[in-house]
């Protein structure tokens, strides 16, 4: 029975993770007994049922958190459940637990609601696929892993679930593993993420070395790397370590940054860089579109790729604390640089792609860059608000693309589309809503969060703010390009497009509502408050009150930057409308026939994704070419000979010993007699030799 008492509700929150995990196990086990339609129904029921439970439970947690006064504690106080210790050695203690606070509740709601709608959509999209039940098992396993990551109480636990979502992503990208492109894509995603995770782990170990070594143990037997826990939490320990210079001693490894904290922060950030597809580890995400579209919507748009942003937010002090004698944490500068550059780079690539899903994938990379830039510029709330809004409208956009692909019999090339609005009105309307939202159309959800990020970035660093403003214009251009090429104009394809079943269209409509409204959480609760907010006064807003770091930070609207952002988006829209809507501006032909090599280069630069894949392939090839002789010698001469030598020893020993095992009793008696004789002689002569 579901506990409704707030305290018990929080105490049993681990069931949110366990329910989909149990569902995944049950689907796998029961699939052997139930084949055919009954097996499919069972798989869908178990998987969707588990996530319905999770969504309902998350809503109850939200209600409990915001409406009741738990144990006289402030509503903003995080709650930590008893932890289960699974390793203890001296003062080193590793535990798993469940952390329920405002940030995790926000993420729980995002993950469970999007997962639920995607799973409903999946029923329509995958119903004729032979791997239907397997797909639901993976979906449930992923949902459990992602929820475990969200509820993690410490960095170690988060790392565990971090790897688990990576494995699920690998399974799901390669779901149609018999396609060579899919198997290559899942391998690429796996390898790129391993690079990030390796450095992430090194960062964790360095952090332990700096804060839990015998000379500098700040955890005192409490759970290592715990996010909360008073003076034994990560923020407090970092402060204590900095106070005694445990994190600022110099060594050859950290000399470039001047302190250990910068190295640790940068190493740990490489994990989110890979998971959230940030430059230079972004190359896997567009290829991950080889997976089924529901996966693209759930994992590679709304939830898993946002895990990197969530990690930075959860371990925010690691990047936010400024060592004495410095003006800024190097880690934040690093994140800001990477995020801003990635936002711009991905936007330029998205402008020329023809595959509808890959266009959206590059858009995701760009928006994730916005989130990191926001966090690094200092707007914790803005970064998380963009994550919140983006999850809904990007999941909807991906599901819309899936409905288009389904209705176009597998066609993904936008050059074979056009005019689809007449055939799929609901899908077209939802795609338009998502496009308006991501482009920052006034009063749509993306408008508020993007404006917050751009405004903070501008005041933090004008170059950063300028690049993000420019990127806002590019975003409007490539998103309306997608819309016009797909839904407007004349139909250019050869197949007969058809609408999708309600199980696929209705989830789009459900996601369209938060895509419009979720941004309004940035508006004050009263009319007077809204007027004051637009006038630039600091007025409390609901989302900033709900999700913030340490203290709520309220700011009024910066009208000038708001107008600048809207103007950039309007310019982007105008260009897209003239080129792809009315075709008044025939830029494509001009580019194609231009004799100017710069124009040609710029187009190819964008279309070929800045040649990152080719550069990486070339580097790997050259690296292998240089060390090929060394690897060959080590492998053929040392490793092979070592193995052969061991085999030779074993074989030779066997050959020698086989003569002693001939099965004749007389021989054994002879050996026994000989041994007894030798022992007797030794016993006789030993005292004489050692008087």
């Amino acid at each position, binding site marked *: 029975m579901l506990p409704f008492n707030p305290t018990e509700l929080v105490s049993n929150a681990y069931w949110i993770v366990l329910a989909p995990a149990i569902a995944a196990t049950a689907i796998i086990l029961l699939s052997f007994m139930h084949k055919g339609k009954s097996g499919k129904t069972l798989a869908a029921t178990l998987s969707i049922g588990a996530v319905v439970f999770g969504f309902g439970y998350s809503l109850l947690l939200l209600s409990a958190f915001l409406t009741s006064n738990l144990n006289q504690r402030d509503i903003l106080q995080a709650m930590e459940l*008893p932890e289960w210790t699974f390793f203890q050695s001296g003062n080193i203690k590793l535990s798993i637990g469940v952390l329920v606070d405002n940030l995790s509740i926000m993420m729980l709601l995002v993950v469970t609601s999007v997962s639920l709608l995607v799973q409903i959509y999946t029923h329509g999209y995958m119903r004729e696929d032979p791997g239907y039940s397997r797909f639901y098992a993976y979906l449930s396993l992923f949902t459990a892993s992602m929820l475990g990551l969200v509820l993690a109480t410490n960095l170690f636990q988060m790392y565990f679930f971090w790897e688990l979502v990576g494995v699920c992503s690998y399974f799901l990208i390669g779901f149609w593993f018999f396609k060579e492109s899919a198997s290559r894509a899942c391998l690429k995603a796996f390898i790129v993420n391993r690079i990030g995770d390796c450095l992430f782990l090194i960062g964790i170990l360095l952090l332990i070395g700096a804060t839990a070594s015998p000379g500098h143990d700040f955890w005192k037997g409490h759970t290592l790397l715990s996010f909360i826990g008073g003076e034994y939490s990560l923020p407090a320990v970092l402060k204590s370590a900095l106070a005694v210079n445990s994190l600022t001693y110099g060594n050859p490894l950290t000399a470039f940054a001047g302190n250990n904290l910068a190295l640790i922060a940068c190493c740990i950030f490489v994990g989110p860089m890979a998971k959230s597809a940030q430059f230079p580890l972004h190359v896997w995400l567009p290829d991950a579109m080889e997976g089924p579209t529901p996966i693209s919507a759930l994992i590679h748009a709304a939830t898993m790729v946002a895990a990197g942003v969530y990690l930075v937010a959860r371990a925010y002090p690691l990047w936010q604390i400024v060592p004495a004698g410095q003006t800024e944490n190097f880690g934040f500068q690093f994140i800001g640089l990477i995020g801003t550059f990635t936002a711009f780079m991905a936007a330029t690539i998205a402008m020329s792609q023809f595959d509808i899903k890959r266009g959206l994938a590059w858009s995701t990379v760009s928006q994730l860059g916005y989130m990191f830039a926001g966090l690094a510029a200092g707007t914790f709330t803005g970064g998380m608000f963009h994550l919140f809004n983006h999850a809904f409208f990007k999941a909807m956009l991906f599901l819309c693309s899936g409905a288009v692909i389904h209705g176009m019999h597998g066609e993904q090339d936008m050059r074979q589309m056009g005019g689809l609005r007449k*055939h799929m009105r609901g899908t077209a309307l939802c795609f338009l809503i998502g496009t308006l939202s991501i482009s920052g159309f006034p009063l749509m959800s993306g408008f508020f969060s993007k404006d917050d990020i751009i405004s903070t970035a501008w005041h933090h660093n004008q170059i950063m703010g300028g690049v993000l403003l420019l990127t806002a214009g590019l975003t409007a251009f490539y998103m309306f390009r997608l819309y016009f090429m797909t839904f407007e104009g004349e139909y250019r394809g050869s197949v007969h497009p058809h609408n999708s079943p309600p199980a696929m269209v209705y989830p789009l409509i459900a996601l369209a509502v938060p895509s419009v409204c979720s941004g309004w959480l940035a508006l004050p609760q009263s009319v007077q408050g809204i007027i004051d907010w637009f006038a630039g006064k600091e007025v409390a807003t609901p989302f900033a009150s709900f999700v913030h770091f340490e203290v709520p930070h309220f700011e009024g609207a910066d009208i000038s930057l708001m107008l600048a952002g809207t103007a950039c988006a309007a310019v982007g829209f105008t260009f897209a409308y003239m080129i792809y809507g009315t075709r008044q501006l025939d830029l494509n032909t001009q580019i194609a026939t231009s004799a100017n090599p710069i124009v040609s280069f710029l187009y190819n630069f964008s279309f070929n994704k800045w040649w990152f894949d080719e550069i990486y392939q070339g580097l790997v090839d050259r690296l292998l070419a240089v060390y090929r002789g060394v690897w060959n010698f080590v492998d053929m001469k040392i490793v092979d000979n070592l193995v052969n030598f061991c085999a030779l020893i074993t074989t030779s020993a066997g050959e020698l010993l086989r003569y002693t095992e001939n099965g004749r009793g007389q021989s054994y008696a002879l050996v026994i007699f000989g041994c007894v004789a030798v022992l007797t002689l030794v016993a006789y002569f030993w005292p004489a030799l050692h008087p």
Partner: protein
Amino acid sequence: MSTPDETHHEPPNIHDEVAAKTGETPTAGDAHAVDDTHGTHDAHDAAHGPQAAAGTFIEENSPQDNFLAFILVPLTLLGLLVMLLTIYQAPIPQEPTVQTTPVAPPVGEHMPPPPTIK
């Protein structure tokens, strides 16, 4: 210069590939199976008639489809609206609150200590 990849390549039809690998074929006589496996366009048209050719065809629904689309999705939407309204009406802290050492015992501290593996 030539615009890259202007020629259109028909993408592989994944459902056909699945069917080829697994040996599963669309159910005979099931118009929607033909449609969903993306058989020939002629077959598609033949299955769905003029409506399909006009592109206005909406596939028939099973009871599960109807339950998911007409009951579960609206309920989820209701949940999303409740979520937005709850956050919107959340109490605004009058004074900034710093997340510090808990002033009261953590929730659930009365529970027995967890097993420890040393």
